[in-house]
Each structure stands twice: as structure tokens, then as C-alpha cells.
């Protein structure tokens, strides 16, 4: 029977190419060749590396593996130091060509260094690996044992996901960001609203977004239960990647067909969207910021792969410029990467944040997982530009965490309570 190639989404095209097939359809189980595997200091050498050594298998292609340290960096705690030692020793023993230690959070450092480009099929040993989809790559998060399979064979099985299409129409208003879009979607469809699916983001508001903002959308596909998220590459993508080491960027080939079938389309009116805040302890507890206005916060944290890119820091600076943090509120900023930190110093963003009373922390995951100085105190309520607020994630079980955009977090730092950031612009 002659198979005719049917219309495909961008994700389906990438999977088909990686599987060596002419076409794939949702529900198909296929085996894909991995173009790039990324792992960090938590699930990487100390777990996946150890298991690979137990197996006694060589790495299938060292040039396709990138190791980044971010979870336990810049922390004097003996366990953290030990994990760094193990990571460095394993990378050295394997003579890996791509090791990026202590440069910042993996999902940000990976594209910064030109490892991602449209059309790639990638895996990452971290659940927020969908972030890579902002660059038109298909990138999924996997566990450490699964990573051993990839390291040993260069392949992984995938169930071709159905597509949830999110169209954000119009233009976001001032003080409203990609984080508000994705929190709104979390609130509307819930934390398992896109289980096993790929979320494809489009519409005029997404087209107008910077790469940093698109990364926020794909990053939090994880909070919808999705396999990954993706944005079709365009000139914005190409321009961003031109500044990195990525070569052979092809935005023309890697587009979905206009008539490709999607399982579901959701539309968000970008112009009407208000800032969103998610209440403890689930990202799906999102509502207009007004719902939670007046909630006192002991800490406001700008950090994580989701919320501490250069655009995020600039959003925070736009709010706090010429103002000072509330007396009873800690204001912490942990830039997502060293490169971002340097850019923020160079353009004056950092000075504005510091003048407002922000404590600038080392780059890395830090407060997002309750590590280091931004760990919430007992019974403390905080607000963060991070992606998860589950019980015990960012501090002791008694602490409570709200999630918001960098605008909303910065506004809370100034007011000492959750408040509408649009009043500060």
C-alpha cells in the first residue's frame, strides 16, 4: 500500500524525520534518533553517569551530549560540593567536549551556547526541557535511567503526541507578560490539561514575543502535563540564534502545514489579559492578580529558568525603578545565567534592581528548589517568577508560594503585598 504523506504539524515533522519515517500521526509509537541530549548535575553524571558506568556501555556520540551544572552550584553545603566534584570527575574521565559548569541554568545556557536550532529532536534530563521548544526544536524531559538508554543507544521511544494549539490574539498590554499567558492557561485547563500532548503556541501576541518570552511559554508546558511545547521558528528566532554558535539554522523547512490537524485549539485574547497570579500550592490556582491583592509577602524572588532571563530582569527593573522594596520583604534576584547577569550589569538593569534593595544572588536553580539564601523561611509566604509552587518545593512545608510574572513579583517587592503591577508602570 503506497503511503501518501499527510499534512503534519511542526512536531510531527520533527519526530518523523528523527524516526526516519515519511510521516507520523498522533498515537504512533516510534523510535527516534536523538540529535542532542542535555543533562545537569542532579540527574546527570551522579545518577545517569553512574548507571551508564554500571552498564559498561560507551556514550553513543559524545558530540551530541551537553553537561551543565546548575542545581547544586555555588553552595558550600558538603553534599552540593560533592556533587560538583563527581560531575567534574565524570566529565573529565569521559573527555566530554561540551561541559558548561556554573554558567547558569541549563535551559537557558543550552541555547545561549548555540546548541539548539529548529528541527532538532532533543532530550533533557530535566522536566523543564520543553523550554527548548521556543527555538523550534522538539525537546522532551526524561528521567536519569531513561537517559542511560539514550546515552547507550542514541535512541528513545516516543508516542507521537496530539497537539493542543494555543492562539494568543492581539497584543499583550503593558505590564502583562508571557508568564501571565501561561498561568492563565494553567488556570483554565489545569495542571493535567495537556497531558501527553504537545502545546503549540501561536497567534499575533506570540509572534510579537521575544525569545525570552517564548521560552517562558514552552518552559511551563511542563505545568500542563504536556510532553513538550513548541513555537514555530521565524525571523525573531533566526536573529537570536545568529548571536550564538548555532549554524545551519533553517526556519523555512521547520514549519507545520497550515492544514495540519490539531486535537484542540484554545484562544486567549491577549489584549484583555490581566496579570495572573497562582496561589499556593499548585500552578493551576491561577487567577487575575486582583483576586490575591493585599496578600502580604515576606519574600519576592526573581529567579529560575522561567523568570530570570534578561527580559525578565528588565521587566522587574521597569517596576522598581526609583522605588525601594518594602521594609518587611526580602527582594532576591538570581539571574538565570552569567551571560544574563553581565548583560544586566552592562545595560544598567542590575543597578536599578540593587538601588531598589534587591539582593543579587549567584546564578543557578537556587531558590526555585529551596536551595541557598532564597529558601523560604518557616511559615513564610513568598511570590516568585518561578514555575512551580508545590508544598515543600521552595522552602519548608509550612511555607507558601505564589507565582507571578517578573512584573508582579517586583510590584510585590515594593508594596510588601501582592498588587497589580500595572499601577507601577
Amino acid at each position: 500500500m503506497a503511503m501518501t504523506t499527510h499534512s503534519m504539524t511542526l512536531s510531527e515533522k520533527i519526530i518523523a524525520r528523527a524516526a526516519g519515517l515519511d510521516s507520523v500521526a498522533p498515537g504512533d509509537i516510534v523510535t527516534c534518533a536523538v540529535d542532542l541530549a542535555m543533562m545537569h548535575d542532579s540527574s546527570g553524571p551522579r545518577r545517569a553517569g553512574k548507571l551508564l558506568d554500571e552498564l559498561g556501555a560507551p556514550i553513543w556520540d559524545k558530540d551530541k551530549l551537553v553537561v551543565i551544572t546548575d542545581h547544586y552550584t555555588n553552595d558550600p553545603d558538603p553534599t552540593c560540593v560533592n556533587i560538583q566534584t563527581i560531575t567534574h570527575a565524570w566529565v573529565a574521565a569521559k573527555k566530554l567536549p561540551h561541559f558548561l559548569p556554573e554558567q547558569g541554568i541549563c535551559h537557558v545556557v543550552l541555547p545561549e551556547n548555540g546548541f539548539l536550532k529548529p528541527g532538532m529532536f532533543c532530550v533533557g534530563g530535566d522536566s523543564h526541557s520543553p523550554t527548548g521548544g521556543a527555538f523550534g526544536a522538539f525537546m522532551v524531559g526524561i528521567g536519569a535511567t531513561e537517559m542511560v538508554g539514550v546515552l547507550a543507544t542514541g535512541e528513545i521511544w516516543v508516542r507521537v503526541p496530539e497537539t493542543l494549539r494555543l492562539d494568543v490574539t492581539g497584543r499583550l498590554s503593558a505590564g502583562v507578560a508571557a508568564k501571565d499567558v501561561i498561568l492563565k492557561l494553567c488556570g483554565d485547563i489545569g495542571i493535567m490539561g495537556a497531558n501527553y500532548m504537545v502545546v503549540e503556541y501561536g497567534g499575533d501576541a506570540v509572534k510579537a514575543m521575544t525569545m525570552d518570552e517564548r521560552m517562558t511559554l514552552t518552559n511551563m508546558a511542563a505545568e500542563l502535563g504536556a510532553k513538550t511545547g513548541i513555537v514555530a521558528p521565524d525571523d525573531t528566532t533566526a536573529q537570536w540564534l545568529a548571536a550564538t554558535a548555532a549554524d545551519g539554522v533553517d526556519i523555512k523547512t521547520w514549519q507545520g502545514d497550515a492544514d495540519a490537524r490539531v486535537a484542540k485549539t484554545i484562544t486567549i485574547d491577549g489584549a484583555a489579559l490581566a496579570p495572573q497570579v497562582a496561589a499556593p500550592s499548585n500552578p493551576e490556582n491561577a487567577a487575575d492578580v486582583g483576586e490575591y491583592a493585599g496578600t502580604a509577602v515576606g519574600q519576592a524572588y526573581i529567579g529560575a529558568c522561567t523568570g530570570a532571563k534578561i527580559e525578565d530582569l528588565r521587566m522587574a527593573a521597569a517596576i522598581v525603578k526609583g522605588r525601594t522594596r518594602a521594609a518587611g520583604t526580602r527582594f532576591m534576584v538570581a539571574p538565570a545565567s552569567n551571560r544574563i547577569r553581565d548583560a544586566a550589569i552592562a545595560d544598567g538593569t542590575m543597578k536599578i534592581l540593587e538601588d531598589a534593595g534587591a539582593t543579587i544572588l549567584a546564578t543557578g536553580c537556587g531558590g526555585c528548589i529551596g536551595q541557598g539564601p532564597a529558601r523560604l523561611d518557616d511559615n513564610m509566604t513568598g511570590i516568585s517568577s518561578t514555575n512551580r509552587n508545590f508544598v515543600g518545593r521552595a522552602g519548608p512545608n509550612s511555607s507558601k508560594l505564589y507565582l507571578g510574572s517578573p512584573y508582579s513579583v517586583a510590584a510585590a517587592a515594593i508594596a510588601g503585598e501582592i498588587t497589580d503591577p500595572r499601577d507601577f508602570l
Partner: protein
Amino acid sequence: MSDSTEIGRAWVYGDNIDTDQLAPIDSYKNMEPEEGCKLCLQPLDPDFAGAVQEGDIFVAGNNMGIGSSREQAPLHLKLLGIRAVLAKSFARIFYRNTLNFGLPALVCADVERINRGDELRVDALKGLVENLSTGETLKCEPLPGHLMAMIADGGLMAHLKNKLKREA
């Protein structure tokens, strides 16, 4: 999983049991999962890790294992003695991680028919759960066919070992 049948007591929880509960930061950071597992589920049920016994069955609602890719989440359950995880639905990375450890993860629509402490006989390969306490038999969705060889080998590591041996 040479013998696919397990008998044990049910530990029953609700929806969205996330990986920050199954593997809280201090346990996840710990280099020894055998130590870290003592903190498993501590935010939700501080008694669980101390009281769970070899052979017990973990029963959850929707979206079991949502959150991080940290495989310590299912590993802790396994190290504590849990021999099968039943849930209405699973978060995708947790599902793969669990099966990769050779620990059956079964999608069961009727988990609310199971009470805490019920004695269950779980046949993972057949997808059947016999509630010995109530006399009911519950049907689960079959395990994914393409993973049967891996599951039969006892998990991904064993499967890869066999594969490498065959290719050598």
C-alpha cells in the same frame, strides 16, 4: 518481574501527588536514595515512609507523579517496598521512570473502590487488581505493548544489559 503477581496492603492518596512530595529536596539531593527514601511523602503523610512494608501497593488519583523528572520519586517508593503503583492517570515522566525501574504503573479507572489498608492482589501483566478485602476485581488498562519486553526483563537497566549482551 518474573512473577507478575504481588499481594500487599493499599496506601491510598488523592490527585496530583507531586515529585516534591515523593522526593523532597533534601532526599533528592541525597547521594544515597536508600537514605533519601525515608523522607518520601513527608509533606503529605509523615507516617508513610516509616510504616510502609515490603509488598505494599501505592494507590493514587489523577496525575500521579506530576512535576520534576527526578526519578528518585518512583525509586523511593520502590526502595520502601512498594511493588505496584495504581492511579487514575499518571504524569508522563513519572510513568516512564516507574516502568523503567521495573515497578508496574497501572492505569486503573476504579481506584476509588480501594480503601487504605485493603489487601490487594495485583497482576500487572494481566492488568487485574483483586481487592481481597472487598472481594471485588478491578480492571486496569494493559501495560504498553511495546514496553513488555523491557518490563519482562525487570526494567530498563536489565533490558539494556540483555540487549548489549545479545549484540556483543
